[in-house]
């Protein structure tokens, strides 16, 4: 008999990897109005895997075993519900499920490897429908496509399981009411649809990457799921767009630095103070490879430019030798593509490094929408930094205190408090 831990571990890993794909195939079989049935089948398959493997040991190919279990359960359900109105069999492919002449072979063709990946991607595009709010999109993707439990999703969003259940319900209702048929978008619409998918993936990534979470495990989970989803898009010819490579590259560069961003107690370490020796060289290499691949065609997205900036940081041997000049050019390019106050503020930081505090202050004072800027934590943090460099500690402290009021993140709060304390001493 296998050790229970070994089975649990394999199953957990397998579940995360495969449950989303199985759900996607089953939704194709039962229709988006029956997502609950699809999820139940996957759940049942997992439970029977756990029970069977406990007594008979692990099969040679656990994935194939799991797929077969799900397929057989799906066949049972089709036989049971053949004459009920639950499943819409009017579609020609599903019609074949109603006859015993064709049930098994049709079911087999639903589970062919090349269809599975397409169904998974189709489901991803369906989840990222612009009518579904981005938090509902991410909730649904984490639960249904990434195999998170409701509890885990709740933890990721720092909210209650009840809220998550409501969000899931709303998304399922949307699918049901609008009779959504998941599919990979046609060539002429693939770019716009992929944009939404990428921004959802990037949001998920940032949820893990940015320091709003105390729970390290959940953060790493979110990051690895975002990377995995983006990789799935790269694995298919139809969705392998330059901007997908660019986002993948950007996320690799960010992830490479993750261990150096916080102390063991979870406190923030600034880029200038990070230990570059612990940056993940393999991930930086991978990011560079993806960045090269992102360069085909003439598409230039913010992901491209952000990845180029991250590349400069990742390949600089020290903070001092960072190529700020090049980075400034990229920030200009970013603002050209899309004006964004956060990007503007980050550009001010580059000017601070490149030309010093007076020039940075000049640039920041030229902004005409100070009211909007006032609401950003980053604005006050940067002003604090500028005044610190101008050796006006009192003004700096005032700005830092304002920043402290505006951030929700525990880690950032702690960081600012430390800064203020250091200046006042």
């Amino acid at each position, binding site marked *: 008999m296998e050790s229970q831990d070994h089975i649990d571990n394999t199953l957990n890993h397998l579940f995360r990897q495969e449950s989303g794909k199985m759900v996607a195939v089953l939704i194709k079989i039962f229709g988006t109005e029956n997502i609950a049935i699809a999820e139940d089948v996957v759940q049942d398959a997992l439970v029977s895997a756990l029970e069977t493997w406990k007594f008979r040991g692990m099969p040679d190919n656990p994935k194939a075993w799991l797929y077969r279990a799900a397929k057989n359960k799906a066949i049972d359900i089709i036989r049971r519900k053949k004459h009920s109105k639950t499943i819409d069999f009017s579609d*020609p*492919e599903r*019609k*074949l499920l*109603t*006859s*015993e*002449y*064709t049930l*098994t*072979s*049709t079911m087999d*063709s639903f589970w062919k490897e090349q269809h599975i990946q397409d169904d998974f991607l189709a489901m991803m595009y369906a989840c990222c429908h612009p009518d579904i709010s981005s938090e509902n999109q991410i909730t649904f993707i984490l639960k249904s496509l990434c195999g998170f439990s409701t509890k885990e999703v709740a933890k990721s969003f720092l909210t209650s399981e009840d809220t998550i259940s409501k969000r899931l319900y709303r998304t399922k209702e949307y699918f049901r009411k609008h009779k959504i048929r998941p599919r990979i978008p046609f060539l002429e619409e693939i770019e716009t649809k992929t944009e939404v998918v990428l921004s959802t993936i990037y949001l998920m990534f940032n949820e893990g990457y940015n320091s709003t979470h105390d729970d390290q495990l959940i953060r790493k989970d979110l990051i690895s799921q975002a990377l995995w989803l983006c990789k799935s898009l790269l694995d298919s010819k139809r969705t392998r767009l330059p901007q997908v490579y660019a986002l993948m590259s950007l996320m690799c560069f960010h992830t490479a630095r993750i261990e150096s961003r916080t102390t063991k107690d979870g406190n923030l370490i600034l880029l200038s103070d990070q230990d570059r020796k612990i940056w993940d060289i393999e991930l930086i290499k991978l990011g560079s490879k993806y960045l090269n691949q992102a360069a085909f065609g003439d598409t230039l997205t913010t992901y491209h430019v952000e990845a180029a900036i991250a590349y400069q940081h990742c390949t600089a041997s020290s903070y001092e030798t960072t190529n700020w000049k090049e980075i400034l050019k990229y920030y200009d390019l970013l603002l050209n593509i899309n004006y964004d106050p956060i990007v503007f503020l980050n550009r001010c930081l580059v000017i601070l490094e490149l030309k010093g505090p007076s020039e940075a202050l000049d640039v920041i004072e030229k902004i005409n929408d100070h009211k909007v800027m006032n609401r950003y934590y980053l604005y006050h943090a940067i002003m604090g930094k500028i005044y610190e460099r101008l050796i006006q500690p009192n003004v700096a402290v005032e700005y830092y205190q304002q920043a402290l009021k505006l951030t929700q993140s525990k880690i950032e709060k702690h960081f600012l408090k430390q800064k203020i304390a250091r200046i006042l001493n």
Partner: protein
Amino acid sequence: MKEFLMLIRGGQEKYNSVSPEDMQKHMEHWQEWMGKLAQEEKLVGGQPLMNEGNTMTEGGKKVIDRPFAEGKELVGGYLLIKADSLDQATEIAKGCPSFEYDCSVEVREIAPMG
């Protein structure tokens, strides 16, 4: 469009002796053929039947524990299809994979009553 019943008879002997690989291939033929009918919206439904059954005669009083006809005559399955005419239904039936197993196929139009 009219509706037609296809009655498939016989073939059990050959079905019983076939290798699993050949059987799988045969079922794929069914899927292709019925899939095409479904695409053309000509498929209403249909099922294969078990070999066992009961036959009732004499006003339901007498029950024989086997199908009415056996051997080459045994009904092994049915299909309901849509077609414009008996000729068209017959043309469709000619493609039925059951011929690979020496079955006979009878095509009958559904009769409107009253």
